Each structure stands twice: as structure tokens, then as C-alpha cells.
């Protein structure tokens, strides 16, 4: 779960990391008022969770109220890589002499956190990592001890940060690590961490992504999640408790188990179709979950046909089949053709139960996917 810049900055500021003064605005008038309030120059920054906002015109620096109004008008409502901007952060423009990068993430290969510092801040750090890995100082953290003070210093000095600001940068990194730990972060980043002419450091951007599996112990962050959701269907999936990812194609996909659903997507692609989504309904297939899953897929206007792929393990195939029938019987008219493939325990009994005019049944995964791709082509609008 990704926090918005304005949310992450609030979290950082509360922990004592210096951030520029800023206000969130949802209308042009509010943005101009905020800019007047903060004092010019200010930056007007689109609050959408896509990288490269600046290049795409989502961040503008303005020197007076007139420019502020023009910028807010431009940015509010604009489309940034598929997302509509409905909030801007109006922020004090900081005069800087240097831009650093500091970040904390989980190195899954090592199974431990890694703290990172670079003097190449203000640009895409993944590009820096790819082109010049040595430009980023990395310090792995033993999660049982946490980050020792010397490790923060080591990362900072190894990165070549000036001695004048090294102590402050180490202290920001320490706080960032503590926040990352305390909030169950997956990634926490400040890019750039600006250095001013009088050797102050200030977080000009803020990234804080949270481990969704840990949200149960962070009710405050879980609240932010709702505010952060960008897509109506993804918000609905959160509500239903599904793992759901929206894609660009027209074959709706429902299945149980992440690997099997991914494989179904891959097969749709392999047989010439285009997957519209990833939707894992998880273990079991009670009628309610099946209904919700179909509701989600049918709600996606891109979808032209649906493949429903269930491998019954402990769950018996006949029970799954009954769930599917009950769910589909609730519709007066089934909006899109649904192909079902059922395998595993009691699959044959299940397929008999499914032998109605509600769905098309196929015996193998390959056949089911090919049939759904066919339907989607036929019914594509």
C-alpha cells in the first residue's frame, strides 16, 4: 500500500524529519489560498502515485498568485499516466545546493532490511542503481538488532556526503529506518533530501509504502489506505478481500490461488487473448465470494468474456460447482459468457452440476482458456 506524498510527509514530519511547509488542496481556489499563505515561490505538486510526475507536467514551480492559479488549473483534473489528479500539494519551494537520496527497503534475497544513501538524489534512483551501482552506499541491517548508529554514519560517509551535513543526514536515515520498522514499511524513501546553502537538510519528497499484511497493527495507516486508493475496482476488491489487479485486456479471469491465476493469465496471453485482470478468490468458493468475484469482473466494462478456473484441493469440486450455480442464478441475465474449468477433488461431480446453460464447462485448463479467448473475440464490443 502506497501512501500519497502528502501522507508520507506528514508521517515523516511527525517523526521529526524536516519537511517544507505545505498544504493539500482539492480546488484551484484552495491551491491559490495555500500558496498565498505559504509565500512564494511555491511548488504545486499533483498527488497521484506515479513516478516521473515532474517530467509529465505534474509539478510546477510558481512565483505569484497568477502563476499559482494557472498551474493549479492545469494540474487539477489532468490525466497523469492513467490517473486523474484530484489533489495537489502546495509546498514551500526550497532553495538547495545539493540533492541527496536516502531510503530503506527490504532486501528479500538477504531476508534483511537495507539502508541506502546516495549523493545522486533528485533523479530516478533505479536508473542510478542500474548505471552506476557504486553511487549508492548500501548497509544491510540485522533485523534483530535494528540499525546501529554507526551503520547510518557508515552509509552516509561511504556515499561521500559532505562532513558538514553528514550528522544530519545520518540522523534522518536513522529516523527513516525507525519509521520503516515502526510502520511496517516495505519501502521508505526521501528523494531528494535537499541540502540548503546553510547546510540544513530537508525532505523535498517522501515515499512510504506499507506492507499490506501488517496493516492490522496500524489502524491509522489503514485509514489512509482508503484515501490513497486510486481505482474504483481496486477499492472494491479491498472491500471484498480479494487479491485483484486490473489490466488492459478483455478476458476476465477468476481463479483460486495466486500461481494458478497467474498461469491462467499467461495462458490467455499464450492463446492470443488479453487478460483483463488478476482475481484470486482464495481458498473455498462459497456462493457469496463467487458472486462478489463475478460482480467485480462484470463491473469492468472492458471485459467481454470470463474464464473461471478452480482447482479444488481440500475444497470439494461439487461444492464449488454449487457455489457457482447459486451465484450465477442470482443474475436475471448473465452479462458475459463464462467458461468454467473445474479440477481436483470431486471435479467430475462438479462438472455434472455445472452442466446447465449458465456456463460453458471445459475439462482442461488449456481448453477453457482457449474457449474464453474465442468468446471474448466474438463478443468484443
Amino acid at each position, binding site marked *: 500500500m502506497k501512501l500519497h506524498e502528502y501522507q508520507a510527509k506528514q508521517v515523516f514530519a511527525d517523526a521529526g524529519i524536516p519537511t517544507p511547509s505545505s498544504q493539500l488542496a482539492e480546488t484551484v481556489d484552495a491551491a491559490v489560498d495555500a500558496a498565498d499563505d505559504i509565500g512564494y515561490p511555491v511548488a504545486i505538486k499533483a498527488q497521484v502515485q506515479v513516478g516521473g510526475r515532474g517530467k509529465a507536467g505534474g509539478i510546477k514551480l510558481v512565483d505569484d498568485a497568477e502563476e499559482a492559479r494557472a498551474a493549479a488549473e492545469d494540474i487539477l483534473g489532468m490525466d497523469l499516466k492513467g490517473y486523474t489528479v484530484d489533489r495537489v500539494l502546495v509546498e514551500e519551494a526550497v532553495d538547495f545546493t545539493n540533492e541527496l537520496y536516502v531510503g530503506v527497503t527490504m532486501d528479500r534475497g538477504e531476508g534483511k532490511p537495507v539502508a541506502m544513501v546516495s549523493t545522486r538524489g533528485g533523479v530516478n534512483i533505479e536508473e542510478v542503481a542500474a548505471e552506476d551501482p557504486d553511487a549508492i552506499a548500501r548497509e544491510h541491517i540485522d533485523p534483530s538488532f535494528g540499525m546501529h548508529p554507526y551503520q547510518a554514519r557508515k552509509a552516509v560517509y561511504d556515499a561521500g556526503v559532505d562532513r558538514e551535513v553528514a550528522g544530519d543526514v545520518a540522523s534522518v536515515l536513522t529516523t527513516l529506518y525507525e519509521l520503516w520498522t515502526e510502520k511496517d514499511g516495505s519501502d521508505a524513501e526521501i528523494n531528494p533530501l535537499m541540502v540548503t546553502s546553510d547546510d540544513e537538510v530537508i525532505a523535498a519528497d517522501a515515499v512510504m509504502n506499507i506492507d499490506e499484511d501488517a496493516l492490522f497493527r496500524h489502524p491509522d495507516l489503514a485509514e489512509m489506505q482508503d484515501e490513497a486508493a486510486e481505482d474504483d475496482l481496486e477499492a472494491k476488491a479491498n472491500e471484498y478481500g480479494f487479491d485483484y489487479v486490473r489490466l488492459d485486456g478483455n478476458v476476465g479471469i477468476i481463479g483460486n490461488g495466486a500461481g494458478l491465476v497467474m*498461469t491462467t493469465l499467461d495462458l490467455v496471453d499464450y492463446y492470443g487473448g488479453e487478460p483483463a485482470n488478476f482475481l484470486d478468490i482464495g481458498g473455498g468458493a462459497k456462493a457469496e465470494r463467487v458472486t462478489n468475484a463475478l460482480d467485480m469482473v462484470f463491473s469492468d466494462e472492458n471485459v467481454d468474456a470470463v474464464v473461471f478456473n478452480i482447482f479444488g484441493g*481440500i475444497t470439494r469440486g461439487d461444492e464449488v460447482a454449487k457455489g457457482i450455480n447459486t451465484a450465477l442464478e442470482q443474475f436475471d441475465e448473465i452479462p458475459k459468457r463464462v467458461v468454467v474449468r473445474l479440477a481436483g477433488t470431486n471435479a467430475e461431480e462438479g462438472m455434472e452440476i455445472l452442466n446447465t446453460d449458465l456456463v460453458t464447462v471445459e475439462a482442461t485448463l488449456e481448453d477453457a482458456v482457449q474457449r474464453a479467448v474465442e468468446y471474448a473475440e466474438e463478443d468484443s464490443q
Partner: protein
Amino acid sequence: MSVLVDEDTRVVVQGITGGEGKFHTEQMMEYGTNVVAGAVPGKGGQEVAGVPVYDTVDQAAREEDANASVVFVPPAFAGDALFEALDAPVDLVVAITEGIPTQDMSRVYKRLSETDTHLVGPNCPGVITPGVAKLGILPGNIFSSGNVGLVSRSGTLTYQVVDNLTERGLGQTTAIGIGGDPIIGTDFTDALELFEADEETEAVVMCGEIGGEDEEEAAQFIAENMDTPVVGFIAGRTAPPGKRMGHAGAIVSGSGTGTAESKISALEDAGTPVGDTPEEVADHIEEIL
């Protein structure tokens, strides 16, 4: 022969009094697994499915000579349950629980490095040695005894592949679901090492998926250390970057690491054929044996 699980495996079930714990204890016992105890704080002295329950794993392991644990404890308490199992100690811990916070697992992983215990999972279907015992939630009926080792990050995908194998009469030595989380105990390389050392395993199926670099490391291990042939499968070819595909670990990073292409080409470079479909995996295994 087999790996990790055999006739001598004596299981304690952590969380045996919960709905899932109780149901799968019965299922495991029905399959022939020697479940000797349960462990649930405050429930000591009770019985579940005829099995005595203890308040601590340590007591269960001591009193009933358990040497393996299966963990059905909810995610908020599962990290602690894993520490408890590691400290008992038992030789094998199978963590079924899905949704354990990654930072909890990072600490467990550190502790694991200080022990000799094998941890399988979390967020995994378990381990089965067909005809002998299963530890976890795998549906026993689709497996059959034979010479193919199987290791997979995914549950139902494993069942799909096993189903294809079993249909053709290609039985399994042991199947290990290593789980779909970013930080897991036994990884592909660990599992491949076990299969390589197992005399009965004549071929291995390895079902990977997007995310991380575990498959790439496994490819290197195969190239450098394995005589037993391996057939691969990689799920998630169509996954977009930055999106978590169900499994917490199944995510292609924004910078393009963890892609299916990278994994497939690493395996192919190591001489490991990779099936485009689960059927093709079975085809390859059939050719080898």
C-alpha cells in the same frame, strides 16, 4: 526415499484448536501422518482428534517426541509461533499461515540462520511424501508415489502440475510447497539440494513465479551442482511491474527485476527446459524418465 518428511516424522500442530488447524489435523491423520500433539497456549490438557494438546511447543515436543511442527496460527501471532517452534527445537517447521508481516519474517529468518531446523513456508501448502505422510493442506488424493521431486512457490498451481503428472503415471518422491512470500525458509536452491541428494528422485519439477531472484539463483545451482534433471515452469509472464499478484512475493519491481523472462532465460541457460503450459512440463518429465 524422500526428503524432509518420512515414516519417522512426528508432528506437533500449532493452532490445532482453530477451525483450520483441527480440520487439517484430521486430514493429515487420515492420510497417515503421525500427528502426536497439538500446541495452543491455554489449551493444554485438551484433546483434538484424539491428539493431546499442550500449552507450549516445547512441552509438546518433549512429552511426545515431536520432531516436526505444522503452523496454522493466525498471521498476527505466527511470527511468535515460528520462533517458538525454532527454539523447541524441531527438525522441520511447515508454516501454512498466509499474510505474516514481512518484517516479522525477516526476524524469523535471522533466527533460522542460527538453527539447524528446516523451515518450509510460510504461506505454503506444505510438504507431502506420497503414501507416507503430508504436513500441511495439500490434497493427498492427487499425489502418487514415484520418482519426481516437486518444488513450487504456489499451491493450486502445484496441484495442477501434480495432476498432470499423476494422470500420466509420473509419481512423486516428495512435493514441497515453499510458499509465495518474499521471505521464506527453504528456497528453491535448498529444495533442489535436498532432491539432488535423494537417490530415489530422478527428475525435479520446479514451479517458480515472478518476484525476487530465487529462480535465478536456483538456475545457477542447477548449472553448477545438479546431476538430476530439472524441468521448470514460471508463472506471471503477463504480470505488469509494481503490482502484487496475489502472493506477497509475486511482484516485478519497478526497475524490472523479478520478471518471468529473466527467470526463464536463467533456467534455459542452465540447461533446464521451461514449459509454456503445465501440460508441457509433464511432457518434458515424460521425455526424461
